[in-house]
């Protein structure tokens, strides 16, 4: 059963078709990585899927629900999808623990105690228990991004989307975040990941989609696509990436 089905997704920005008919399917427990040059629309897809940007055309189903229908309650859709941003976007006025419990308490109606206990368990599992009472600005970038991941996971989303979660991090902090993503995969989290980390995509993804000219230009099993791409554009992109 597919968790997410995208058909003909279109989005225009300033007269340019950033997305020109994207087709995409995600099955339950599947991990899919979106790769492509900067500006190829990776982030735009994630924002459109979370209904943070209005879609210009196409249809998106979350489970059986057509979420592109304007009568759909967008808040309800977002409750089922977790999204983690490149710049973490933690709430600086709340402690780490309060960042994590905000949505479970205010959106999912959990009581204070069980919400805190669940959040502490998650923080502990990802080695952040000693930071629970700290404020985001006193943490390293890697720690902040791990808290952002915990915050998204705490709402038990059906689908977790990661938008370039390591791009703002120093190289030595990238590993701790990627390790955490790999752990979430082991816990069979369904994930859609926009990334520049090709070796990570190879390790963690079931499938990789290469975005080019606003469409999924080529897709396939991670190793197959990354090691032996069939399309010329994909080959060029991967070669340019390796040369850096």
């Amino acid at each position, binding site marked *: 059963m597919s968790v997410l089905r995208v058909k003909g997704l279109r989005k225009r920005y300033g007269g340019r078709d950033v997305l020109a008919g994207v087709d995409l399917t995600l099955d339950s427990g599947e991990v899919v990585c979106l790769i492509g040059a900067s500006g190829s629309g990776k982030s735009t897809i994630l924002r459109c899927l979370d209904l943070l940007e209005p879609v210009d055309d196409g249809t998106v189903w979350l489970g059986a629900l057509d979420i592109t229908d304007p009568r759909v309650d967008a808040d309800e859709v977002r409750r089922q*999808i977790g999204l983690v941003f490149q710049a973490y976007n933690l709430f600086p*006025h709340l402690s780490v623990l309060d960042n994590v419990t905000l*949505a479970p308490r*205010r*959106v999912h109606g959990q009581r204070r105690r069980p919400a805190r206990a669940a959040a502490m368990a998650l923080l502990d599992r990802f080695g952040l228990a000693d930071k629970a009472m700290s404020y985001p600005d006193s943490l390293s970038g890697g720690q902040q991004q791990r808290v952002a991941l915990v915050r998204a996971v705490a709402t038990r989303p059906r689908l977790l989307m990661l938008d370039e979660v390591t791009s703002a991090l120093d190289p030595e902090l990238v590993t701790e975040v990627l390790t955490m993503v790999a752990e979430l995969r082991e816990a069979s989290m369904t994930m859609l990941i926009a990334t520049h980390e090709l070796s990570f995509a190879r390790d963690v993804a079931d499938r990789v989609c290469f975005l080019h000219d606003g469409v999924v230009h080529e897709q396939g099993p991670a190793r197959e696509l990354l090691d032996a791409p069939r399309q010329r554009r994909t080959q060029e992109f991967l070669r340019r990436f390796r040369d850096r």
Partner: protein
Amino acid sequence: MATAATWHRSVDQRERDRYRRRRSARRGIVALASTVVVLGLLGWGVAQAPGWPSVQQAYFDPEQARLALPEVAGGFVFNIKLFLAAEAAILVVALVVALVRVVPAPALAPIRLLAVVYTDVFRGTPTILVIFLVGFGFPALGLQGVPTDLFWLGLIALTLSYGAYVAEVVRAGIMSVHPSQALSARALGLSYAQSMRRVVLPQGLRRVMPPLLNDFVSLQKDTALVAVIGVVEALRAAQVRSSADFNFTPYVVAAAFFIAVTVPFARFADWLALRQLRREQGLAVG
């Protein structure tokens, strides 16, 4: 590996520490000496002025101060009451007006226009004029339910005037929170109202705390303006006392009362800002 217990400062470091101690002692002495000299010169200069004895008698007469104290203090109670009531009312009005101007709900469109007109008009009108208009205009309407008590009229006038200023400060605070904060709140499933209340407003209000408290210090002084509609508050009491003996000391007494309240208020504002900085940034700010 050297631990803190076994570590001895090197000869160079001891020399550097000695130098730093001497330097800070030297700086302390210079600061003290310069303060004494400047203040001494100021005091001496004023006392040398040919008119000083008569000024001293007119403004700083201890006997007059003692006589004025109970009346001015009694009046000042009114200022404090008005200040506290007005502060609460202003916060509510300002928050509502600021939110109306920010929230994009289509049903609010006519109210939004009203809010814009309100802030424009009342920020442009001198407070003393608003007090005159409300103080004499409202009772003249003769409407049922319109208060005629001077306290309430003063309260309404100050709230109208300061509500407009404070609304703009609050709105600036809301606008200063980066849109990515609201975006990630929405991504977590929070509704617009929830993300405003839990994420945007707390950050926005914290950020404008210093200008907000600054406006309240100013409000505290402006409670004296309601004297113009005949309320006997600290300034008016001082005026009455002053005209009895043709001595200005009661005014100085009234000023002392206002300062006694605003200075702690200002220190409190500083402390609040510092605490926030420390907590959120983990900074060791001295």
